[in-house]
């Protein structure tokens, strides 16, 4: 009788000790932790390998050519081909996006957040914007391609339509983050809705809106597929020497990411082997500068309520 009780107590003590130390669970817990870390590190290693691989391939071009690779235009000769034509095209597209998508997008966001009480129109608009944001970029290309303009203006308008929903969503989030007390302060001194929006909401929401729009610009500069559909030049072209400004903006054009694409499938090996990676580096530097600007802007002007 007594022995069995003792044995039971011993067993219980061992169980408790095991439960407190939880060696089994701890072992599994460590494994789980390590597994998650491994998955995150794999993701980061992929990024590192990608950047390193492209930099190594691009190195010879920059070592031999230096800045002239950035300031030279398209050429059939790999010795003199540069990305300048693409940079100009990308800048032209970006300017059109800034002039077109940003005012319309921010105005839409103001309407959605400040003017539209929960009406049927605003709910429909909200759903429409969310759906548009998910439409594959090449479908926007089909939209732009069904008009017949094969120039940089058509490209800019198509890109504006592509980024419009993203501008609206990011601007809406920035406006929503402005607390109501700020608005009420304006209404309290007799300001109208527009006056409150202009003098109270917008100054507070501006940092968030700017951050969002800079990131959107990066998206517009990196897009390739819609340009291919609406007829960007994927081969060599050169505007005649006496081309006027109008000739240039209504004629053939290319963009930085399109140059990456077209060089990667040139028959001359130099284009795909070293020039395309070098063009990628130029593209990535532009995008990193934009992203860095967005982060800097966010940290510099962040509002704390």
């Amino acid at each position: 009788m007594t022995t069995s009780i003792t044995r039971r107590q011993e067993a219980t003590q061992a169980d408790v000790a095991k439960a407190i130390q939880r060696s089994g669970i701890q072992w599994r817990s460590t494994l789980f932790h390590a597994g998650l870390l491994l998955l995150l590190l794999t993701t980061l290693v992929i990024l590192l390998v990608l950047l390193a691989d492209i930099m190594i391939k691009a190195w010879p071009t920059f070592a031999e050519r230096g800045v002239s690779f950035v300031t030279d235009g398209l050429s059939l000769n790999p010795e003199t081909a540069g990305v300048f034509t693409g940079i100009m095209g990308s800048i032209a597209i970006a300017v059109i996006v800034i002039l077109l998508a940003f005012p319309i997008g921010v105005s839409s966001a103001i309407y959605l957040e400040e003017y539209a009480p929960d009406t049927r129109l605003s709910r429909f608009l909200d759903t429409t914007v969310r759906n548009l944001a998910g439409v594959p970029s090449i479908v926007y290309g089909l939209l732009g391609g069904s008009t017949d303009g094969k120039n940089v203006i058509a490209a800019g308008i198509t890109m504006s339509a592509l980024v419009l929903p993203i501008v609206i969503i990011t601007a809406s989030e920035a406006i929503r983050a402005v607390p109501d007390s700020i608005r009420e302060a304006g209404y309290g001194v007799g300001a109208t809705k527009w006056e409150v929006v202009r003098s109270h909401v917008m100054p507070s929401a501006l940092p968030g809106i700017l951050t969002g729009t800079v990131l959107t610009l990066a998206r517009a500069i990196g897009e390739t597929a819609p340009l291919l559909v609406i007829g960007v030049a994927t081969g060599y072209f050169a505007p005649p020497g006496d081309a006027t400004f109008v000739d240039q903006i209504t004629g053939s054009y290319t963009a930085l990411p399109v140059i990456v694409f077209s060089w990667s499938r040139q028959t001359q090996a130099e284009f795909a082997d070293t020039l395309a990676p070098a063009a990628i580096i130029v593209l990535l530097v532009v995008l990193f500068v934009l992203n860095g600007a967005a982060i800097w802007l966010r940290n510099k002007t962040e509002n704390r309520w």
Partner: protein
Amino acid sequence: MTQQLTLEDLAGDAKRRNRERRVKVLFVAAGLVSIAVSILIILSLAGEAWSFISQVDLSSLWTVGWFPRRGLYDIPTLIIATTIIAGIGMLVAIPLGLGAAAYLAEYASPRARRWLKPTVEILAGIPSVVLGFWALTFISPEVVARIFSSAKPFTMMAAGLGVGVLITPLVATVSEDAMKAVPMSLREASYGLGADRAVTVRKVVFPAALSGIVASMILALSRAIGETMIVFMAAGAVGGALRTFNPLDPGQTMTAAIAALATGSDQVAGQGLTFQSLFFVGLLLFLITLALNSLSNRFVRKYREQY
């Protein structure tokens, strides 16, 4: 004599009220642009798609492959290739993205998180044309060709892996947001019952964040299906493709088919309906991604409202 305040005074300055009305009209008009864009997309796609489907010989929609300039419009070829490539992409992105999200949300110290998260976001900002180039010049020869010695330079496998790299940060950031949105009280309840962190993550945080995690996956799937450049550059078959289920073969997705036709990569003499077929495929793509995005939005709304 004190001045009487009239209703007219209370109504305010007429000029100010008029400006108010004009400004509002302007904002409504800006909002309507999005609706106009949607209508234009649907009209331009549906119009040409209809003229395609009403003129095409229906038997050519089910043949040996997708060779539009020869009048062979085998839609299953495109659907199968799209499924294979998006599937490979998801197989890469789900473990990597979820693992990264769980580590960032639950394990990483605030200091580590401050530089780990932007690094993942850098990956998200890499344009697809860059990943397309990398899939063709690195993933294909250095990864795919080493594992499968029979692989050709252009394979759906290489494109799928590239798409996986593209959508991993999307899964990671959206899932991380969902896990961060799980209130601390739920974790504390779990710790109070004696569970450790791993058990809490698996049995409490994951289920609570499930709708957000599912939303991230659907969103990623939609992006994978709509991705053009990686597939166009790395999966080959720009001149059309035979129907195949083998991921080590070249293949053409819906997006790549549109890009190939539009850039005239398949320079065979044109045939009447090639232009219209582009819009038919575009409409199909539009409807599939629209359905997926609506589904994903529904899940996102669910996790936003839960707590």
